[in-house]
């Protein structure tokens, strides 16, 4: 017994165990790059055909001239850059180096630009409206951002919110109904629209409350409740659309929120129209993303919410009311999604229609996962989906040989690839979909 063992070796000693490298990412990047090279690089119209990108709008502070590039050369260059990036990724794997998110980001931008160059090649009459594309991105992303924020709020506290779709739809419905009622009694459309905007979160919160009742009080599987609540909301809104709104057309008119361009900022080329010439709902979205991101990760409330979603029993043992937190978050999440629902009616200046959310709630759910349950990430993922949607509209205008249905599929396919592990391992809150019982 002469051993003097004062300290166990804590540091892991160097180990010579050979771990298999995962070549999946470079292979996929490479294959997609090569396909793009053939389809969009080589197939782009050559022989002096050009593509023109328009950036400025008429009332900008100053004008950025339109950019015209030789189509084929540019498309080839861009796809070659993408293939080179796949090579960099392979090099990283070979040398066991981690490469940051810049690589897939730059890769994606290069490929998108290549597709745009291809689509705009040789069209003298039409050019690619980059600014319009980006405006469309922000606008189309709006309901997705709200939806995925709602999902994040709920899931961070351990409640799976499949009912985002229903919350969006309920918000859209009530916003239109209240806007119609208020504007017809006060005679002011924009006042009515603002009251509708206030009403929307109430509808979403009600759906959230129903979700929390069944999930927290009755321990029903949260996915089941969510799916069924979606059906219920479709049924209720369609029923009242077919009765109440049909008999009283003044309750469902196309009423829109006015645009609120921010002075000066809105006239900066590109950035201005994209970010600062929007309506109240979009500005609310900016605020909510920023506030939630800070609150969730830096505040007492956020720490407690996350502890409830990860290890509710631990939270309980330090005096945090688990179920109360969950109910509050689910209702709050419902309200956020409900607010997002206003996008479909008052924020777009449209009347309510049956099932008008068209599955955006499910896409928002995907954006939440892609965004890894953080408001910041949700915003980024929603913008990505918004861009795909916007691209489809743009291509619809200029007319390309890509069938619009395939473009429409892109967000769904992207989501499938994402959840199948292409974006790395995603880790949901550990206590998701597990009722907390003492």
């Amino acid at each position, binding site marked *: 017994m002469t051993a003097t063992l004062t300290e166990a070796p804590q540091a892991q000693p160097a180990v010579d165990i050979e771990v298999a490298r995962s070549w999946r990412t470079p292979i996929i990047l490479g294959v997609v790059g090569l396909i793009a090279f053939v389809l969009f690089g080589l197939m782009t119209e050559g022989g002096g055909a050009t593509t023109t990108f328009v950036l400025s709008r008429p009332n900008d502070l100053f004008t950025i001239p339109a950019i015209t590039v030789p189509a084929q050369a540019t498309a080839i260059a861009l796809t070659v850059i993408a293939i080179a990036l796949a090579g960099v990724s392979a090099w990283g794997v070979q040398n066991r180096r981690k490469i940051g998110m810049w690589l897939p980001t730059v890769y994606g931008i290069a490929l998108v630009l290549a597709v745009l160059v291809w689509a705009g090649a040789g069209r003298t009459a039409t050019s690619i409206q980059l600014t319009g594309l980006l405006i469309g991105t922000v606008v189309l992303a709006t309901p997705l951002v709200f939806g995925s924020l709602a999902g994040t709020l709920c899931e961070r506290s351990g409640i799976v919110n499949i009912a985002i779709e229903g919350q969006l739809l309920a918000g859209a419905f009530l916003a239109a109904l209240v806007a119609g009622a208020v504007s017809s009694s006060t005679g002011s459309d924009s006042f009515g629209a603002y009251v509708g905007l206030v009403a929307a979160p109430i509808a979403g919160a009600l759906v959230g409350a129903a979700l929390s009742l069944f999930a927290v009080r*009755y321990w029903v599987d949260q996915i089941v409740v969510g*799916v069924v609540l979606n*059906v219920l909301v*479709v*049924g209720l809104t369609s029923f009242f659309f*077919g009765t109440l709104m049909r008999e009283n057309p003044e309750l469902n008119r196309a009423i829109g929120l006015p645009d609120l361009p921010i002075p000066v900022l809105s006239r900066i080329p590109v950035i201005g129209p994209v970010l600062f010439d929007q309506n109240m709902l979009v500005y609310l979205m900016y605020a909510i993303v920023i506030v939630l991101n800070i609150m969730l990760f830096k505040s007492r409330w956020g720490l407690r919410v996350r502890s409830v979603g990860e290890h509710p029993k631990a939270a309980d043992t330090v005096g945090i009311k688990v179920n109360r937190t969950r109910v509050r978050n689910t209702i709050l999440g419902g309200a956020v999604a409900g607010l997002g629902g206003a996008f479909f009616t008052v924020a777009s200046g449209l009347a309510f229609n049956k099932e008008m959310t068209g599955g955006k709630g499910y896409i928002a759910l995907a954006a939440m996962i892609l965004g890894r349950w953080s408001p910041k990430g949700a915003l980024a993922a929603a913008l990505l989906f918004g861009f795909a949607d916007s691209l489809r509209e743009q291509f619809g205008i200029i007319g390309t040989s890509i069938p619009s*249905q395939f473009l429409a599929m892109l967000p*769904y396919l992207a989501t499938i690839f994402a959840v199948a592990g292409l974006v790395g391992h995603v880790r949901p809150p550990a206590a998701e979909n597990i009722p907390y019982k003492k």
Partner: protein
Amino acid sequence: MSAEQTTAKAVEEQDDRSVLRQIAESSGLVVALAVVASIVIGAILVVLASPEVEEALGYFFSRPADTFAAAWEAITGAYTAMFRGSVWNYNGDTFVQQFRPLTESLTMATPLIFAGLGLGIGFRAGLFNIGAQGQIIMGAMIGGWVGFAWDLPWGLHLIVAIIASVLGGALWGFIPGILKAKAGAHEVIVTIMLNYVAANLIAYALSTDAFQLEGSDNPKSPPIAETAQYPLILGDSFRLNLSFLLAIAAAFGVWWLMERSTWGFRFRAVGANARAARTAGMNVPLSIIGVMTIAGALSGFAGSSQILGTESSGLTAGVAGSFGFDAITVALLGRSRPLGTVMAAILFGGFKASGPALQVQAGLPVDIVLVIQSLIVLFIAAPPLVRFLFRLPAPSREKVVAA
């Protein structure tokens, strides 16, 4: 945690682990009361939406009885219309007219039985498959193409077209299955996404020459060849076809598969505790892929009953209706068991069949059926809520803890 707590907790968790179990153990009384509660709430909606009631409310304090009379009329109007639309049309002039609603209900129930059976297998195997809609679309699309584009003799053509439908659905179940098994992709997300992919695929297909009716710009295919159509089983006056009998047969098949076969044993074990199943040597990924593929195949069968049966006039993007989503509620209501699924499918088939009668005779949108349907499932998933609504005593909850 001490042993008895662990056990008590384990028992409790087992009791409540999934809604599927909740539903499986809910008593018949709760099911009946859930239906009653849902119908009552539906009645409230009918009253709220009735212009006559609104009118009578205007002079409620002078003649309150009018309001109640109007409300009663609205409710009875709605529900008798539903009855006439789905069970027995006692206003019909001929027997055929009187009897047709029931056969319509069974016709509507057929795809629900197939798809509901498939989803039920998934639920029991712990897989929440939301993808029946996409699977039905794929089944109908591929089976329909064989049905209108191929030229085969009577009998054989139908069989080949059915097989094509089944394979189409199976493919759309296999994809989320293998992604779940090999990459851990959550089946809820993947199946939802595949529903949209399928919807876009069929929209695209119907814009191509291979599918579109020649000389037409409508997104609709030529009609299915008569050789590939399900024969009608009650004569030409009724739409009920052979696929209904096949659906009943499928229910027996699924019962045998889940209760009496080694595959079903594995599916159940993997669904209830995948880790223990794996430790005992079961191939969990294969089981997941198998369940999803079989579920998809059954939904593909549902697709065949649409395109080779009721929708044989031609493939459209709306061929699946909302059967895929309704099948989820059917499987939940049917407790994921074959018999329950058949009964639930017939109930919901009846709801669906009553739509036109509701619309025409009672002036109500068919969407009220969705409300009643979803409420039924919600109530059944939460028996304590139903007991609370009807002031029933709670069942004696025995937490079995053996010493």
